């Protein structure tokens, strides 16, 4: 599973993307965020305020209950500020 980080999630976590292999019990977005948060450091800091984290799976906005699977591209980012 590929995870992408944008804006201040990228700078806090210190990576633009990474390949991860979460354990089988991580089956949805909420589980993935918990699992990442437990890594501590920049992850805990970047993900501590869930209301500020938007999630896209395979280029589509999803909620925290969206299922995730091995081949997915998951993106985590703050509310958008373009235009």
């Amino acid at each position, binding site marked *: 599973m590929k995870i992408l980080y944008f*804006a201040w999630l*990228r700078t806090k976590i210190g990576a633009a993307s990474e390949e991860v292999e979460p354990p089988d019990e991580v089956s949805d977005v909420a589980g993935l965020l918990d699992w990442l948060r437990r890594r501590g450091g920049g992850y805990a800091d970047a993900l501590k305020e869930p209301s500020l984290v938007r999630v896209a799976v395979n*280029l589509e906005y999803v909620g925290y209950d969206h299922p995730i699977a091995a081949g997915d591209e998951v*993106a985590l*980012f*703050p*509310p*958008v500020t*373009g*235009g």
Partner: protein
Amino acid sequence: MSVRVQQEDFDVGAEIEALVRGNHKIGGVASFVGVVRDVAGDQPIEAMELEHYPGMTEKKLAEIEAEANQRWPLEASLIVHRTGRLAPGERIVLVVTASAHRKAALDSCAFLIDWLKTKAPFWKLEETADGGKWVDARDADDSAARRWIES
């Protein structure tokens, strides 16, 4: 109907001309250009850095544009959004819509920029003398986008 994400500047007049040339059903062309301001709150900014999510950006912009074409009888539409480092006064984004009548053009142009601001995955970093600061999302943008849900 077309969407572009690019580092280079765009020429507003040439973009409009290319979009409407030869289509004599068009009676009104509305456009919006977003420009980098020189202040963030009270603080002068030196530049703006625009990051985006390649692939998802183009997908969302195309969806937003398709939605506008469903809601209004548009003859042509265009979204161009720049990325990278932009100085105050530089153009960030261009939205153009063209229709037989002016109301469809004006309303759809406002719709596109309102939705783009809340749905398209772009993020702005403002560079000030104190360093870089990621721009916070504005509640006003969410409410601007919401007014299109009821209509």
